[in-house]
């Protein structure tokens, strides 16, 4: 036990690594929801039989962009996106640069989850809203998003948990954070203590995210 507190690596590098991980996860979660939510709504609404069917646009977005992005393994996507990260943030190193590829990797994933949450809203509710004279925007905001809010929070939770995993991978190619710490010290120097501590921290982080997400989701659910 003494080992943990006296370990120079942990004392020096751990706080910074935690901060970097939180930064990466926080920034990319923000952008994933900001872009993924409208994208998911758009995919759902423009689908055949949707509120405003747009078959061609829907096909392009759904098949080409979302499916292609999702079929590239994240480790490869991340490396491929380094030039884009540099163009956007001026650097290819550090948590902020890594957030670019993290966001792009998870936006399609989250958009698909949003789409499926919206699909689960009972069609009768949408009929009811239309019959009472709702505009399409009012149907989206007052029925689709409102009624699927508990499911959307659960989807966001799953996405953030995925981001924690991806962020560890991003650490290997310059993103920093707990992933880098585990790799540099735990793998390359065989420092078992560092390895175990980072694993425990990541597990705790995931547990906390999951717990908070479930609490919020349940609090919003009146079914």
């Amino acid at each position, binding site marked *: 036990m003494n080992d943990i507190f006296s370990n120079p690596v942990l004392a020096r590098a751990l706080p910074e690594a935690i901060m970097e991980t939180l930064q990466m996860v926080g920034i990319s979660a923000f952008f994933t929801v900001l872009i993924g939510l409208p994208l998911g709504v758009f995919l759902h609404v423009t689908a055949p039989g949707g509120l405003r069917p747009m078959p061609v646009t829907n096909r392009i977005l759904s098949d080409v962009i979302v499916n292609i992005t999702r079929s590239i393994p994240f480790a490869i996507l991340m490396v491929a996106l380094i030039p884009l990260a540099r163009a956007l943030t001026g650097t290819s190193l550090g948590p902020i640069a890594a957030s670019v590829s993290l966001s792009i990797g998870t936006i399609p994933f989250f958009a698909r989850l949003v789409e499926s949450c919206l699909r689960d809203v*009972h069609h*009768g509710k949408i009929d*009811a809203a239309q019959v009472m004279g709702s505009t399409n925007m009012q149907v989206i905001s007052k029925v689709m998003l409102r009624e699927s809010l508990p499911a959307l929070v659960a989807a966001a939770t799953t996405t953030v948990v995925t981001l924690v995993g991806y962020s560890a991978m991003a650490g290997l190619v310059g993103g920093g954070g707990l992933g880098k710490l585990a790799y540099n010290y735990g793998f390359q120097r065989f420092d078992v203590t560092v390895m175990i501590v980072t694993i425990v921290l990541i597990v705790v982080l995931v547990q906390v995210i999951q717990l908070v997400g479930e609490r919020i989701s349940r609090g919003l659910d009146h079914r």
Partner: protein
Amino acid sequence: MITVTDLRKVYRQGKMEVVALDGVTLSVPKGSIHGIIGHSGAGKSTLVRCLTLLDRPTSGSVSIDGTELSSVRDSEIRAARRRIGMVFQHANLMDSRTAAGNVAHPLELVKTPKDKIRTRVAELLKLVGLEGFENAYPSQLSGGQRQRVGIARALASDPEVLLCDEPTSALDPATTEEILDLIQDLTRRLQLTVLIITHEMNVVKRVCDSVSLLSRGRIIEHGALQEVAGELDSKLARALLPLPPSEPLHGALQRGPVLEILFSGESAKEPVLTGVARHFDMDLNVLAGSVETLGGQQFGHLRVQLAENADFDAVLHYLHERGISAKRVAADAAAAEEGAN
């Protein structure tokens, strides 16, 4: 007053054309309740979707108090929809909203001021007998209470027409009675025009002033409840006054002629059967019968076995003279009945 004229709806399924509505015409006066009854697949759902403008009819028109609805431009369609309040089979309430929130929903859509919404919602919940349930979520309400919220919501935008799509099909018998009473009461008090689409004859018997029978996209019978129930040959009369299962007809026919009799109104109060027995000095045997009060009028539907040697035509004449419809049940009817069973 709602008037539907020659409404047609044709769907395309690949190269096939499916005629869902084939020239539906009906008219319901203000303050009355009209039932539309039909089996599944008869076109009830399509009719609802055309009346609420969720689907555009292929041709024909729907108008409320003389204002044409079916041809309004897309920009006016939402205002037109607000003239029809709709009650759904499963209420279709928003789970994330309280009872008050659900009733407020249509009012929010047109940016009604908050304080006005509050007073209107309280008024509507009182109207449907749900005072004190403002803050309850749909999951905390019973099926009947949910339907009451649905009715209050449908009335929020002050519609002239209330369209009820199977409003009681998901409710137990006691709750069905309550909801039908409420609909009837509201119709009279608010002078609504009400259309109830249903497959339950009981709903028609209980509250409707007039009824249409929809079959394969056409209205094949229609009229005031008392009229259609008084016609021995109409399908609606048979559905309104069904005979309970009894001895198979062909067995009865072997013993002597069988007569089907329909009394209505005043004639239902007279002792006709004993009259026949006395007049012709013969015994009668009632095989099956049903007696109902429909639209405030008494109706009776009987199947009677006459003596083997009875003068059938004389009996028919006797009954017709007294304003009672009656007809002989023929052997082929017996075969048809057996086929149906």
